[in-house]
């Protein structure tokens, strides 16, 4: 297992001009990214939907690379998104998934069969042409350039250390620096999309 922030710092060096949907990596990514106009830190509009949103963006913007940092809790809610991605096969879609084996934001309760799910196998079985799993940061760092050098869709499950929050939601420090409306408006402006 490795720290999400360390992984995101490595990714940032290879990010280029990708649109990044940071999902539950948002609190760290907000501090690391140097291109916030191409970031889509939406927090959690409704659990399970990050992959669908990123897929929609990738389909809408085929000339832009779209990188998603999904989570295993989100994906377990919406495993059916995997065959949809595989069928449409957007070559610009890079699907990374943070697997901390628990629901960290609700106190760290384990997800179902937390330590025994091979998400890369599920993705490959659903039709992703390439799927990987990493539990060592050095392996991820060594493989990332080749993962990004080839067309998507690609899936990579990343074993990360849980950062469990036990403070009531109303008492947590807000990590977002922009409202969701602002995030989407900034992205549209960056992409030249009229509303």
């Amino acid at each position, binding site marked *: 297992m490795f720290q999400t922030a360390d992984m995101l710092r490595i990714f940032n060096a290879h990010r280029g001009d990708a649109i990044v949907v940071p999902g539950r990596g948002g609190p760290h990514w907000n501090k690391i990214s140097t291109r916030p106009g191409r970031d889509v830190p939406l927090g959690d*509009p*409704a659990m399970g939907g990050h992959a669908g*949103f990123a897929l*929609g963006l990738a389909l809408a913007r085929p000339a832009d690379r779209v990188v998603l940092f999904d989570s295993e809790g989100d994906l377990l809610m919406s495993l*059916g*998104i995997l065959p*949809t991605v595989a*069928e449409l096969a957007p070559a610009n879609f890079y699907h990374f998934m943070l697997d901390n084996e628990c629901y960290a934001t609700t106190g760290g309760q384990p997800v179902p069969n937390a330590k025994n799910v091979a998400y890369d196998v599920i993705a490959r079985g659903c039709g992703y042409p390439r799927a990987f799993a990493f539990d060592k940061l050095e392996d991820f760092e060594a493989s990332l350039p080749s993962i990004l050098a080839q067309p998507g869709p690609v899936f990579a499950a990343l074993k990360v250390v849980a950062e469990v929050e036990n403070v009531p939601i109303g008492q947590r420090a807000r990590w977002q620096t922009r409202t*969701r409306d602002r995030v989407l408006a900034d992205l549209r402006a960056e992409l030249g999309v009229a509303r």
Partner: protein
Amino acid sequence: MAQTPATPAQADEAQLDPRLVLDEMKKNGVTHVVWLPDSETNFLYQLMEADPSLTLVPVSREGLAFSIAAGLATGGQHPIILIQNTGLMESGDSLRGWTIALQIPVVLMVGYRGWTRHGVNTDSAATYTERFLNAFGITYYLVETSADAPRISIAFEEARRTQRPVAVLMADEYHGFNR
């Protein structure tokens, strides 16, 4: 007195011609149809599949459709969501979080399973459909026959103007397989 049977022409008028539905979509610039099959829209699917201007995005659970549509719309495309009322009700949190909260102007074309016109429902899917939409503050338009097809454009206009999802209830299940 014996009732005069409907002529073929009258029977056609009592149906919804899927070609008109497709025309309404194209007139309103739809680029992507995020959908899960239902019995109300089977023939429409065959028409959409044959139309090169539309990209079909199949989902396996209706809740998935809302975040996909949000991503498409954010990226500058014009999706429509085509699902059945049963799946709409399953999708409540996605409808809330990914379309209402993000102000996504998307039309939900919803197969109205169980619709009977006379209010005596034998299918609870119909009983709760409009209650569900009212609970979420979603405006809806009923489309039963070809004469109702222009209401689809009204729904598109309202979605654009309000930046919210608007529903069209497709109440023609028994003709969904007709050619």
